[in-house]
């Protein structure tokens, strides 16, 4: 029997699924840029970039609502099953994570504006720059994995998240040291802390996105699992 199992009998269904995926990717691209810009703003102290990030946050929110609506439409009209169902669910969840990432990016931008007024803006510069670059890579890695149904890529993102968490912990220790040394820097340090925290959260969301990739491809729900568990599950399902 030579049938093309990649195509639905309903062409419109195909198109609808394709549309939510593309829209999600578009949103992902925007969010990725927002994060990259926010990180750029901290490092360079460029308030115009930060302003721009805050302004575009609204756009991300709009996209979330629109894509979620499309997902609802598919659920209502097509009652998708199996891989289609997983696709819709995954897109819907990924979109929510993307929106949260957008929120975090705008938080970073807001704190950047506060920090930029201050002299000791070099505090933890290194860590922020490094972690920022990591999470931007994570986002694009997770989205790539989603586009390619690539479980290995997704697992790699989860691994990176673990590294980001470790960096966050060490940056935290560094900040505490600063604060103990010089209590005047506490206000500044807390701002930096918020920024670091936001970057770390972005990493977590990127990790959530890659978990959805694993769900999409294998049907296994790996949320709230440890890295080793995820690696195991991904390996057995492959």
């Amino acid at each position, binding site marked *: 029997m030579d049938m093309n199992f990649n195509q639905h009998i309903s062409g419109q269904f195909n198109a609808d699924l394709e549309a939510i995926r593309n829209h999600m990717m578009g949103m992902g691209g925007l969010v990725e840029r927002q994060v990259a810009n926010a990180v750029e703003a901290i490092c360079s102290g460029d308030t115009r970039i930060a302003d721009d990030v805050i302004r575009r946050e609204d756009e991300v929110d709009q996209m979330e609502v629109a894509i979620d609506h499309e997902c609802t439409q598919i659920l209502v009209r097509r009652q998708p099953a199996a891989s289609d169902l997983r696709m819709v669910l995954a897109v819907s969840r990924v979109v929510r994570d993307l929106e949260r990432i957008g929120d975090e990016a705008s938080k970073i931008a807001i704190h950047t504006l506060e920090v930029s007024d201050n002299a000791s803006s070099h505090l933890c510069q290194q860590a922020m720059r490094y972690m920022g670059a990591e999470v931007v890579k994570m986002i694009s890695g997770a989205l790539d994995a989603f586009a390619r149904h690539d479980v290995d890529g997704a697992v790699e993102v989860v691994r990176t998240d673990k590294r980001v968490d470790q960096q966050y912990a060490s940056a935290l220790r560094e900040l505490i040291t600063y604060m103990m040394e010089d209590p005047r820097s506490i206000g500044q340090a807390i701002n930096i802390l918020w920024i670091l925290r936001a970057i770390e959260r972005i990493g977590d969301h990127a990790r959530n996105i890659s978990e959805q990739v694993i769900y999409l491809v294998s*049907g296994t729900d790996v949320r709230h699992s440890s890295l080793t568990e995820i690696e195991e599950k991904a390996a057995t399902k492959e």
Partner: protein
Amino acid sequence: MSIIENHQTHGAPFSDSPKLTARNVGVYYGDKQAIFDVSLDIGANEVIALIGPSGCGKSTFLRCLNRMNDTIDICRVTGDIELDKENIYDPKMDVVPLRARVGMVFQKPNPFPKSIYDNIAYGPRIHGLAHSRVELDEIVEKSLQRAGLWSEVKDRLHAPGTGLSGGQQQRLCIARTIAVDPEVILMDEPCSALDPIATAKIEELIDELRENYTIAIVTHSMQQAARVSQRTAYFHLGQLIEVNPTDQVFTTPEHALTEAYITGRFG
């Protein structure tokens, strides 16, 4: 020839507490083979849904389970089907008591052109289940109540069964099946001729009946299979492709054919 050579059914076709066990069942219509080497357990008190595209053999397989295929002269069944460890194709096995134990509900509601009462009472009468009019009345009432039809028809038990609505007729047929107190109920697309509300009532009924009966249901509606069954078996061109818990089949089917069918990529 079978489509997939040496196909092994994916998933979990066997049950820990089987009511009916089918092993290597093949069905032939004359020279044409309709079912290829199907092995499947139907567990006690479970609802198993048989799905698959038209002509995949799911109805044929269902009809093997109470030997309804016997009425077709050219039909030949190979392999073993056991009901509580008893081979139902044993030459010593009489189909009459077998069909009393394994009842059947059909695609189109088919009440006898008799009164509602006589429809229900027919089975108990021929099998001699009631020794008095009072006992028979009890059976009729109990069956109608179980089928959720009692309150709707209790005032017109002697009206013709064919005068009921489609959904009521189908519940009447289910009540008629229950009246002989079977162990297994086979349903062959029981809702395909009904509107959504009648369908919902039947599905509700199936859910309630699961407590006391083992049910195998053939359906074209995947949503229905998903709603009523605990396990789902996917047939394709006479082969049993996959059997798995229903939620698993509808979220993460194992076999590509199952996936393609339930996502509407063919069928």
